[in-house]
């Protein structure tokens, strides 16, 4: 798993592209230099040869064939730079230090490179030469050339080495790129890991800063500053909800106490007792609504993240199903739980249980006798889906978004008990878990599904990352 991830990194891609551009431009530069140098050297050689041919042809005109042969003989040093061959029309050698006419076709006035055999002492070597042929009057042919073997060898060496050098550069570059990416990855991983731990609820965590003021340190510092701010906001939010809770609960508590005290004093059969009892009931309803609102606020603010743990959704489903099944059966509803495999997610068990309880409670409330309720967990491509499907009246498509808002109760349910916050709480719990709540037609009935995305289900499950630490 390591290699593919390394190749996918931005650092590695940058290095790779850089190396490719560098290799192409280096090859281009070398080729240009080679071509230019060769041309300059060739021109130099050609000019020398031209000058010599002019000199020799003058000698021929002045001294005739014998004179020219003498001059050539005197210039022809075996093993020297200058190469000469004077022949008749049939290429029979007359004078010169070349052993025979080269096996190539010379075009007049143009320079050609050819191989020749050089014998010095007993040694014979094949060498490279460059030269041209000059036709003398009388049909005699004069070949003047210069030995360019050293230059030729250098060029040959150069052109065989160049690809290897480029290859070596590429390999070294890739290794360097790999190391660099690894280094970058390690630092990014530490940031990623910290973010995940923070998302999982540990708000006190901070991204490590190395103290060398590089870009990563700057990023880490900004992230940390952002986290400080989030933590402060969360603490502020907690203080607000705590004081709201405290300031509202204290007077409600006194009111409840007074009613309790009155109830203890009144004879249980009196009208006043019944009145007081219903007042107590109203207060309890008020408290339930208040508690639900507070819980929604807290879930939406992500406060309950601290209580996140690895849990099996099946246990949540089984527990709630067991609690609610008798209620459903009492109402004449078929209630069943679809069998499923393990469904681990990171979650707050209590809130998930409450959310599921709300969904099941709604299903039981709004499904007429003889109906059917089915709770299931499925592994879908988009995540782990926990759903409650009923065969009741369902919710008209145009109302589905609206029922998720707080205190919204559809006409059909106006007269049944409830706070109107049940689904809002489910939405808040879903949000807390990065999940989404889908309401769909169950044909007939409603199918409410909470989808927990795989990445949150998985990411929080493992603390070790492929490239971290080791």
């Amino acid at each position: 798993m390591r290699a593919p991830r390394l190749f996918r990194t931005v650092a590695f891609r940058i290095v790779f592209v850089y190396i490719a551009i560098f290799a192409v431009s280096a090859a281009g530069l070398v080729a240009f230099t080679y071509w230019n140098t060769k041309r300059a050297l060739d021109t130099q050689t050609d000019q020398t040869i031209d000058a010599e041919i002019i000199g020799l042809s003058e000698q021929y005109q002045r001294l005739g064939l014998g004179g020219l042969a003498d001059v050539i003989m005197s210039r022809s040093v075996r093993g020297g730079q200058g190469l000469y061959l004077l022949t008749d029309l049939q290429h029979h050698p007359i004078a010169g230090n070349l052993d025979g006419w080269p096996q190539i076709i010379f075009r007049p006035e143009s320079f050609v490179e050819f191989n020749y055999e050089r014998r010095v002492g007993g040694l014979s070597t094949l060498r490279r030469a460059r030269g041209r042929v000059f036709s003398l009057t009388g049909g005699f042919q004069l070949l003047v050339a210069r030995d360019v073997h050293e230059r030729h060898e250098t060029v040959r060496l150069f052109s065989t080495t160049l690809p290897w050098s480029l290859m070596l550069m590429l390999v070294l570059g890739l290794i360097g790129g790999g190391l660099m990416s690894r280094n970058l990855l390690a630092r990014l991983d530490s940031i990623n890991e910290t973010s995940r731990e923070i998302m999982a609820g540990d708000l006190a965590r901070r991204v490590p800063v190395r103290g060398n003021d590089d870009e990563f340190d700057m990023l880490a510092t900004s992230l940390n500053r952002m986290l400080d701010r989030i933590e402060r906001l969360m603490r502020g939010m907690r203080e607000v909800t705590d004081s709201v809770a405290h300031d509202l609960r204290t007077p409600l508590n006194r009111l409840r106490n007074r009613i309790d005290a009155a109830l203890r004093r009144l004879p249980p059969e009196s009208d006043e007792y019944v009145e007081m009892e219903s007042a107590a009931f109203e207060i309890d309803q008020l408290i339930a609504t208040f508690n639900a609102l507070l819980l929604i606020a807290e879930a939406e603010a992500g406060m309950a993240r601290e209580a996140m743990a690895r849990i099996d959704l099946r246990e949540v489903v089984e527990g709630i199903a067991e609690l609610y099944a008798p209620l459903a059966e009492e109402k004449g509803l078929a209630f069943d739980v679809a069998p499923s495999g393990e469904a681990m997610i990171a979650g707050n068990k209590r809130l998930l249980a409450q959310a599921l309880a709300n969904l099941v409670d709604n299903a039981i409330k709004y499904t007429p006798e003889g109906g059917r309720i089915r709770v299931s967990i499925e592994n879908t491509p988009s995540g782990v889906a926990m759903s409650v499907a009923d065969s009741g009246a369902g919710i008209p498509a145009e109302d589905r978004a609206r029922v998720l808002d707080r205190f919204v109760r559809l006409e059909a349910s106006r007269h049944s008990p409830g706070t109107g916050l049940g689904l809002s709480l489910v939405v808040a719990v879903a949000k807390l878990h990065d999940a989404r709540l889908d309401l769909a037609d169950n044909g007939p009935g409603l199918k409410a599904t909470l989808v927990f995305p795989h990445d949150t289900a998985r990411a929080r499950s493992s603390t070790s990352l492929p490239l971290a630490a080791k």
Partner: protein
Amino acid sequence: MRILVVEDDLEAQRYLVNGLKEAGHVVDDAEDGEIGLSLSLSRPYDVAIVDRMLPKMDGLKLVEELRQHGNVTPVLFLSALSEVDDRVKGLKAGGDDYLTKPYAFVELLARLDALMRRRHPAAVKTRLQVGDLELDLLTRTAKRGEASIDLQPREFRLLEYLMRHASQVVTRTMLLESVWEYHFDPQTNVIDVHISRLRAKIDKGFETPLLHTVRGAGYMIRARA
């Protein structure tokens, strides 16, 4: 029973103390955490009711200190704070039970009874008996008279909890918390359905009912009406 009430809201304190006295308990009160701690360390109480937010010394701190001194007096926290993880904090600090304000007085009384009962446990029991109803905790079987009663595992736990608190009022919330381990308010009274099923199993066809509904409070199992 001797009960210590540590509560800074004087009106709430007055109602609490009066209510407890009317219920036949001996009550001491304290207005802040420091007085509460010194009282609870110097006198033996059967149970202490401690508010979470107190002047001078926070309720959590009070209980932590108390536990550090080796004092095991059962503590019931009262809290007006938001609830999500406050309960966990309270229980971690050494509290034994937790009640959010506002609460119904019957709920508080029932919980205090349960706490005090826990304080004086009879020798480890393997059988529970109420009237002619017997519960064998080892074989997980129940019988009434000579007739054996077939119980689901959860029904067994429900009956066990009721019988362990025989002749005490047990509230629906207490049952939901202890038998199902849920700490939320179910919108519908699901517990009632479970109770009526249990009642059908243990009382149906017998002359004297054992499982009683206590108006405005909860349920109670006892031998005689």
